[in-house]
């Protein structure tokens, strides 16, 4: 399986990337908004899941400038072009905007850090089968 993970904290993501690889999920990591968008647009392989951080630096061209919601804007931009599973993976809990999206998007899930690997993998499989 192929995953794209967009998170501005590359330093703390390495262990999960290696771990997911052991579970057969190959992760391409992007540490900015723009590189994530470009990676998704340019990917030749089928993307099985996209993992998004919520709080991250907004894009340089952003008009909203709210780092608390960068992941939400990213989701909105991606969702127009990509119909596969998306997982919000963040320390932030009970984000209202995410809760609202979860009600309407069956291929969307939200997991809180730290999250056991089994839970992550289980969620990916569940979303793929939706």
């Amino acid at each position, binding site marked *: 399986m192929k995953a794209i993970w967009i998170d501005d*904290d590359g330093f*703390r*993501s*390495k*262990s*999960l990337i*290696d*771990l997911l690889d*052991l*579970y057969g999920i190959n992760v391409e990591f992007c540490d900015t908004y723009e590189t994530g968008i470009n990676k998704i647009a340019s990917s030749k392989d089928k993307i099985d899941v996209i993992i998004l951080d919520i709080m991250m630096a907004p894009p340089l061209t952003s008009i909203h400038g709210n780092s608390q919601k960068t992941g939400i804007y990213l989701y909105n931009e991606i969702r127009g072009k990509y119909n596969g599973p998306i997982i919000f993976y963040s*320390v932030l*809990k*009970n984000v209202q905007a995410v*809760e609202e999206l979860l009600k309407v998007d069956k291929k969307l899930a939200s997991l*809180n*850090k*730290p*999250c*056991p*690997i089994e839970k992550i993998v289980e969620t990916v499989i569940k979303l793929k089968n939706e």
Partner: protein
Amino acid sequence: MKNLNFLNFLKKEGNDTSYLEILQYSPAEISVIEMKPGSNQFDIIFINKLKAKQFDIADEGNIIGKKCYSIFEPNQLSPAEDTDHCKNCPSLEAYSLEGKIIHIDWSYYNKAKKEVRFTSLTAQRIPHTTKVIEICRDSTIRKRISDLIIEIGGVKRREDIDEIIFKGFLEQLYFERCRIYEYSESKKKFILKKFKKAKRDENNKLIGYEDIEFNNILNNTFPEQYILSENTKALPKIYVAQNHIKPSYKKKNYVYLKEGEYDNSDIYDKKGYPIWVDIPILSTNKVLGKISIDKRIDVDMSPDLGIEDYDIEIIGLFAQNIGNIIEKLKLLNISKLHEINEIVLKNDKTQIDQNLTQILDKGCDYLGSSNGKIIIDMNENVKIIEILDGQIKPPYTTDYSNTIYNELKEHKTKTHKIFDLNSETHIKEYSDVNHKIGIRYCLLNPIIDENNNLLGTWYQESFDKFDDDIISRTGMLANQTAIAITSIKQYLELQKERDSAKKYQEEAENALKERETFFETAEHEMMAPLDPILHCFEFLGKKLEKSSDSKVRYTIKDGINHCHFLNNTFYNINLLRSNLALNKKPISIFSDIIIPMVETLQDYANCSKMEIVYYGIKNVAEIMMLDEMLIKNVFFNLIRNAVKYSNPGAAILIGGVKVMDGYSYIEVVNYGIGIPLGEEEDIFTVYKRCDNAKIMNPSGMGIGLSIVKRIIDMHSGYIKVTQNSNPTIFELRLPKV
């Protein structure tokens, strides 16, 4: 008389008719004329519109009637309009001379007598012209006085009455001077209060009033019989200097004074004003005062005042209305005080700021009433404030204010006190102002609040002794004032407290925000590295799952469990300060929550040689609608507490008990130190820790069980703790849906 053409009669050449003849032909309530001696001109004729019909004056639309009347009303129309009117008048040829209408085609000059005085009994002299213009009584004097009666009925202040009196007699009825007196029962005299004179321009047109200086001298020599007495009737009394009139003009109702009886008196100052009228101001049962009016008169002219017997009646009625309104306004003070109370009740900040805050901040030492106003003297030497309009208006000299202030300081009592200001003690201070106007008595009524504090004094002064009614009313006003001042003070104190509370609230909110920011930052900084640590252990666990070294496998598992433990601990703190939101989904309570939690904490329990055992999986509903994260936290807290507060070797049991009425019953049993009797409910209070728990484990915060109860309550469940000596049983009841 009906067919008489009155105009033609007047135009008749060489008319040498007598005054009485003219009068005979005069159509009753109308006008005629006046002419200066030697002049061949006279002023306009004016004819009552209704009467005109009787005299065959057809063209009434132009020269008579309402239109004419309005044209000649003084001070209302411009000369140009007057001229236009006259130009359009076919019967008369007229031109304007300095705004006065002169009709030159009427030459009724009596050559034999060398004078013409065609003044009917109904004439009204208008002072701004040297001629006499007759005007219809029904439309002038009576109408004007009726208007004044209506106007006086609407006044709300004593001063306004005086203004209407001056306006009425000086402006509307053309008198030149007007005095207003108050009657003193104790002195049996009228005391002069105000004296004004009409101020006129070079054309004799009224442009305002001017005050005339006066003195009240108590023992004047003016003949007592000429002064209105207490038993006077409502009708005005007219006085005439006898040497100013010819005997033929005498009227029986006038009082004729001989020389020396009037013009030698400095007090009454009638020189040059040989005719005057005294009009009594009467209430229903007594004389309140009088109005005295007068005017100059030329020796050669008619001595009448332009008022007749039936005018006098309506002027008397006007005076009586004045009396009634003065009586009514004695209640004015009460209404003013109501206004203060309303200001307080409305909490109108602007009004309070303007009028009252200042007073109360500096302390209210003296409050009184003078001429219907409420004034507050803020301390011994400071200004007096007119409370209702905020104007600073000191009515008395400082000495007088100080005297009053000192009196009330010495008079700290709950009852009123009356001062006779003419006594020797008071005469010095009193003479400054009040002596001039004849005030003798002063009533001080202390304003005392409910705590018996003297806030000030209600003060009232009078020419006469205060009767019981006044004393009682003043007492009531003092009580109302105390309530008003107390209310204002309370309001201001409350406002201060509100401001203070608001400040503290803002500080508390800021502190809370800072705390929240700190927690959020700390949580993020702690939880973010916990994620890679967990995954490092998981990575190692996956890589080494088939390792033969059990110690390696155990260490990796231990690392993972510590990560979960730390995560749950942070979650507890997070829950304590957050607004919890339920995110329910179908969950198997044992396989999704209890069993993983037991696995997480089993090693933790094993370290204390304890074992966590679960049972009765099938005794509860297989699937329940729960918030997975929150219910996990419930069992994390209950099991961790059981481990923390049990002795080594004890067992911890988690069992499904039953399903009843749609609820699943689950128990968490421990054989720990127990809960002191009577404190079973307290343990669910945040930060509450039992003494035995503190001894056994000093590091706890006392938040776990409060969170447990909160989460269970949110699920519409129930938790209770029971102890039968040992064990301690936490019983949970969770709904299926």
